[in-house]
């Protein structure tokens, strides 16, 4: 199966090299704002439409793996698609490309700018950004929830988990573990829209 994944890219329009892979992910890592998720549509353009390195189905497969394994989605996606194109070295080049910009930029911010957070102008601006950040997170929860939660079992689990996290301060990793166990053991009669 490993061989299957790595062949398949012979009649692609543009040859993929370790450097071109690194560079494609570097561009994505440098110019997409708003977190990793904002990169996904642009990555699709870069990998599928522009360079023809992957077809739509292959990209969808990579994305599915990236979303269903732990860790930042873009990190997983870079590893998986880089691996599919050029093996382990490809995965690592893509990974390096995607994390290097934010690592260096945030390092520069931590070194040179973090101390100015206490400056009155910056402080006032950040205090105003706070409520906007809350709204962005809350909207993400609602929008995502509408798309993936079906049936009252999901809602019951959601309420249980939220209560545990907010009222009882349980460690978030238990929520992940219990969520996985509940999905594994409980019959999924009600939230079956995905299984249909």
């Amino acid at each position, binding site marked *: 199966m490993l061989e299957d994944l790595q062949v398949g890219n012979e009649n692609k329009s543009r040859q993929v090299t370790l450097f071109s892979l690194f560079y494609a992910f570097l561009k994505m890592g440098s110019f997409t*704002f*708003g977190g990793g998720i904002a990169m996904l549509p642009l990555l699709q353009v870069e990998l599928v439409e522009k360079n023809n390195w992957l077809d739509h189905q292959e990209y969808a497969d990579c994305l599915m*793996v990236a979303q269903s394994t732990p860790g930042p989605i873009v990190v997983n996606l870079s590893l*998986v698609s880089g*691996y599919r194109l050029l093996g382990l070295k490809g995965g690592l080049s893509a990974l390096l490309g995607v994390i290097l910009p934010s690592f260096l930029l945030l390092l520069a911010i931590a070194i040179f700018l973090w101390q100015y957070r206490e400056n009155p102008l910056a402080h006032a601006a950040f205090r105003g950004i*706070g409520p906007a*950040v*809350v709204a*962005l997170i809350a909207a993400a929860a609602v929008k995502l929830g509408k798309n993936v939660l079906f049936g009252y079992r999901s809602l019951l689990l959601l309420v249980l988990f939220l209560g545990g996290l907010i009222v009882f301060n349980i460690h978030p*990793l238990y929520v992940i573990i219990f969520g996985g166990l509940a999905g594994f053991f409980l019959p999924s009669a009600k939230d079956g829209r995905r299984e249909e």
Partner: protein
Amino acid sequence: MLILLWQLFVAYFKIGLFGFGGGYAMLALIEYEIVKVNQWLSITEFIDIIAVAEMTPGPVAINAATVTGYRVAGFAGAAIATLGVIFPSLMIAIPAAKLVSHFYHNPRLHRTLSGLYPAVIALIGAAAVVVGRNAVTDLPGALFAAACLLLLFLTRLHPLIYIGAGAIFGLIFYL
């Protein structure tokens, strides 16, 4: 120093290992490990990191790891924390890709993952509550957050616009 680096690595390793569902879902994990348990960052610093992460490219987990690591243990800390958060991906994502056909056809795995949906949404909701408790401190802030929320549901504006509007709102009300 070595112990500190090890603790940084372990904390971010945990965040990577249990970080299902993308950046927003990881916020609750980061807050728990970094602010609550280890107290490497204050809650305001944590909120500022989310704000900066919205303004800069790249995954929020990488951004948070870099800043936390640097603040705790300099350059080595930044590198170790970042390595910690991507390490689980390195171990899991590629082997998982090799099993991609099983991913499609194994209903049990499918069920397990769909069981994670309520967990992921709960984590994002909890992050909104934790950040909200600390970031929304007065009536103008609450009204501004409500206005943003309304726009987020009604329009498809880029997140950067909300950050920019927040900065302007802050400069008007909190200077």
